């Protein structure tokens, strides 16, 4: 079994609002999945269900466990960094390491200390004395020192400057990720991570709009920049989205082969951000 997460008909509602609405998907081992959606799309609720922080309807299995009912066992093999899961401000770095070492069977203090020596963070500093970037670095050092099978990152770099953001993902790829580990990440800065992803999932109004590998994405979706009659002919092939740029029509096609589009204009692979906007607009029609 390579499937790490299996969701079948998972729903979660708050009163009459369906935050997650009958979603089904699988996440395989050794993948980096980007979960992309606008605010209020249900991303965080879905992540919370995966992490056992909230109960849900349907069948949800993470590492073969029921996340809500077997949360302690699950948390031995899952790590998460959420923008809202802030480190306590009163704690010292050394105390934080002591604590995680005391409660987490898969934590290597030595690794965490090695990672920390590569930063400006000192063991006797309190979290409240660190900048936001350093707090995220500290959290990442701890997470990377935990031998976990699934890492969930919910807007991990929100509010950080570009240097910290680049470093964060570089560390994650170089020092952490391997084929035995799986990363699930949500972010608004999708253009920064799209080159890291192996898989992508779009979510809107609690429903999954797209669930694909990045390789399949470039086969399925094509963007054409065309003008005049070429644009008219391209329009006839049924683009899912069209925008104007520098006097040219930029059309996005789904499932239309490249041969059909060649000769109509400049063909390129759409960015995840453009595809996301097109899919959301399509869903809201």
């Amino acid at each position, binding site marked *: 079994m390579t499937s790490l997460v299996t969701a079948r008909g998972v729903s979660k509602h708050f009163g009459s609002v369906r935050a997650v609405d009958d979603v089904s998907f699988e996440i395989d081992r050794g993948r980096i999945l980007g979960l992309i959606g606008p605010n209020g799309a249900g991303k965080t609720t879905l992540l919370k269900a995966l992490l056992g922080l*909230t109960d849900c309807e349907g069948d949800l299995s993470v590492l073969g466990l029921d996340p809500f009912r077997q949360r302690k066992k699950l948390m031995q093999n899952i790590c998460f960094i959420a923008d809202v*899961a802030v480190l306590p401000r009163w704690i010292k770095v050394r105390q934080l390491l002591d604590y995680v070492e005391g409660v987490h069977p898969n934590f290597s203090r030595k690794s965490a200390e090695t990672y920390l020596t590569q930063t400006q963070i000192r063991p006797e500093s309190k979290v409240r004395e660190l900048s936001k970037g350093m707090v995220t670095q500290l959290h990442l050092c701890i997470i990377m020192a935990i031998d976990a099978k699934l890492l969930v990152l919910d807007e991990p770099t929100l509010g950080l400057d570009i240097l910290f953001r680049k470093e964060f993902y570089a560390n994650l790829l170089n020092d952490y990720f391997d084929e035995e580990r799986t990363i699930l990440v949500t972010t608004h800065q999708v253009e920064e991570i799209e080159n890291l992803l192996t898989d992508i999932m779009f979510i809107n109004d609690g429903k999954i709009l797209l669930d694909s590998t990045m390789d399949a994405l470039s086969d399925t979706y094509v963007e054409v920049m065309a003008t005049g009659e070429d644009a008219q002919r391209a329009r006839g092939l049924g683009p899912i989205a069209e925008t104007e740029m520098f006097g040219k029509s930029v059309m996005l096609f789904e499932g239309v082969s490249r041969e059909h589009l060649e000769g109509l204009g400049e063909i390129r692979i759409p960015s995840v951000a453009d595809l996301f906007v097109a899919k959301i607009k399509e869903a809201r029609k």
Partner: protein
Amino acid sequence: MIAQLLTLIRREFWEHRSIWVTPLAIGILVTLGVMAMLVFASGFAKELDLAIFGAQNLTGDNERRIGLILFFLGTSWIFLIALAFLIVFYTLDSLYTERKDKSILFWRSLPVTDAETVVSKLLTAVFVLPLIMCAGIFVTHLINLILTSIWVAAKGGAAGALIWGSVPIIDTWLFTLVVVISGAIWMSPFIGWFLLVSAWTKRMPLLVAFMPIIVVPLLEWIVFRTRFFASAVGERNDNLPIFRGMDVEDFFEDKEWMHSIQELRLLEFLDIGKFLTHPETWLGIIVCGLLTTAAIYVRRFRDES
């Protein structure tokens, strides 16, 4: 399991520095008070008598022994009042601040269940805080006995006989320890209630915790003209069922006890069996268990987003 519990309790020490700062501060204040008294006593003719904790004319063995026991119990009392405040503020803060500063999701990202977290806080309130306070009491007593011995010896007195010979030190300490721990268990329904308020309230835990204790008896009186709730809470405060039919306050006023004071053992006035078999002790533990379970339930099921 035990190692993890110890880590969780250590965490409480890091977060709530008042756990050890309070007994330290009181210990320092008491010691400074005793030192001031020793200096003050130097101005009087009967300075040796005065030095034995401020009571005049304590020349007799019995009186000196009573004076020392009163010093022991009096200073313990200051610590215990502080302990009551400490437990109230600690428990009300323990599950509230983690939600307010949003660190709860970090704590919950680690393999520790909500039950383990809440129980670690309950154990800290019922056992660890009282034990730390008792340690503070004992250390303060020892330091003050040593300081006074040095002073008495410097004035030519026989400190060994006058001070150490008169102090039923182990007896008083064990008495304090048993009363403090049984008292904390006896009051545990309130601790459970404070934990539940701390896990549940969105703001002002202190007000939310004490409001029902004031409002419910008032409403009960207005609506039913009865006082069951008020008397239940009041009796819980007054009647720790461990004393062997003795009133500690009256005890020292009763002259008959003076004669047998050298044989006096405070522990003899405690009946641990009575405490452990008293139905209300167990009723209290059950109420505490139910309220703590409710606190665990709230922490587990409440969506913080």
